[in-house]
């Protein structure tokens, strides 16, 4: 691990201004992804700003009937919250499908949104990777790509987004609340939060340098049946090959977002309109522009079948 300096921030404003002041600074909260990447020197911050003391760990009701989830709420606590279990079951299910009990005890809401891809070529520092070293090339394009994205990719990067929680946040129309180093705040709809790779796969989100996530807000509950179906190589503690998060209403309408298939949680409005017509119609819209590799083309059929299973489960 490269050497770095360290400070404990005592307020969000102090954290954001410190991040803007020190070049190469990063925030650390749970640390489960960042420290892993620092050990491999994929991340090499010059300075760590520990934000764990910022008191952003509350889950509060909002005036419009939704929830405000503090950036530091641990994945375990978010999944265990009675309101989340009752009204946002999709979110609780997605969280519980991810990682292990130990990791969920440390991982935070904001950190989960920002976790990096598990593309093996991103992790292998001996290989070119446009995300890790911009302009160096993409080894996955001609490499082992079974786990990679099938849609939303580019010639520069086919890495899949790893988060389960973010899939639920996408379907729930969450909003990411931030504080910038100049003390201004922003509300970023999650649909605008993630960037597709294009020619710049190292730029993953809409966040500006030093911008600190303070909370994630959810609109009022949607009702309906909440399902998160994750398909993976083993029954527990593995990343998704394909996951489907859905909220299905009695008339068959609803929302759906997918994990494991794209560089960001994948949600297509035109696909949701097809939900009453069944999985094949939904999948056709979701994957209209898919460019799978020979090794991951199976994800298209797997996604359609997982969608069919989810819609059948919703019908009861």
């Amino acid at each position: 691990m490269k050497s770095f300096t360290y400070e404990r921030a005592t307020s969000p404003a102090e954290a954001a201004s410190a991040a803007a002041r020190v070049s190469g600074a990063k925030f650390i909260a749970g640390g489960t992804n960042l420290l892993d990447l620092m050990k491999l020197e994929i991340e090499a911050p010059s300075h760590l700003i520990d934000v764990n003391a910022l008191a952003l760990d509350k889950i509060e009701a909002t005036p419009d009937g939704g929830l405000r989830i503090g950036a530091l709420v641990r994945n375990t606590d978010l999944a265990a919250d009675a309101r989340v279990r009752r009204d946002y079951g999709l979110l609780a299910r997605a969280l519980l499908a991810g990682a292990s009990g130990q990791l969920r005890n440390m991982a935070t809401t904001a950190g989960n949104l920002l976790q990096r891809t598990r593309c093996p070529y991103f992790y292998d520092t001996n290989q070119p990777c446009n995300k890790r070293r911009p302009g160096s090339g993409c080894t996955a394009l001609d490499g082992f790509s079974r786990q990679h994205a099938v849609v939303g990719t580019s010639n520069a990067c086919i890495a899949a987004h790893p988060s389960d929680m973010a899939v639920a946040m996408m379907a729930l129309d969450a909003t990411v609340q931030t504080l910038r180093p100049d003390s201004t705040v922003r509300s970023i709809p999650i649909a605008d939060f993630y960037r597709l790779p294009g020619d710049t796969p190292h730029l993953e989100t809409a966040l500006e340098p030093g911008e600190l996530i303070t909370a994630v807000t959810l609109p009022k509950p949607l009702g309906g049946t909440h399902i998160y179906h994750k398909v993976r190589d083993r029954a527990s503690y593995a990343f998704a090959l394909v996951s489907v998060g859905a909220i299905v209403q009695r008339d068959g309408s609803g929302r759906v977002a997918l994990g494991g298939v794209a560089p960001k949680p994948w949600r297509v409005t035109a696909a949701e309109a097809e939900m009453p017509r069944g999985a094949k119609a939904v999948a056709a819209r979701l994957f209209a522009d898919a460019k799978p590799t020979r090794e991951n083309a199976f994800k298209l059929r797997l996604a359609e079948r997982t969608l069919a299973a989810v819609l059948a489960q919703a019908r009861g």
Partner: protein
Amino acid sequence: MPPAMSKVSFTVNREARVLELDIRTTLLDALREHLRLTGTKKGCDHGQCGACTVIVGGRRINSCLTLAVMHEGGSITTIEGLGTPDRLHPMQAAFVKHDGYQCGYCTPGQICSAVAVLGEIEAGTPSHVSDDLTARPELTSAELRERMSGNICRCGAYSNIVDAITEVAGRQP
């Protein structure tokens, strides 16, 4: 440039400890290399195997994926703090009785995790295999297997580990 150093004070197994550490030191390395508490094991060092599981503030975590300096003022329990060879923790005794290990390398992490898992079920925390998110989780083999999935056992002692945890859970009021 010399590595940046920092002082950190925390409680380990009910004893106050103060260390002067290279900031890069993980909690795992602080425990093993600086406090000589070598019961906690380094397996993968990347949060994938669970051998380094310790209990911090009542919660199980991977000590390899957290910096020691992030635990200023914290309270840490390792396998050495759960029981001693003369006075085993009930979970340690049950692992011995049920043969919940072969080589023993993952065992301290398994036992710290298992103790915390029973607390999580007691607190009503749901899991991936809980049928009803709003109901109290039941103490089934499927629940224990899911909740223990962050602890890998290369020797494959899993069924005996489930037996050991089940027995301890049954003993609790």
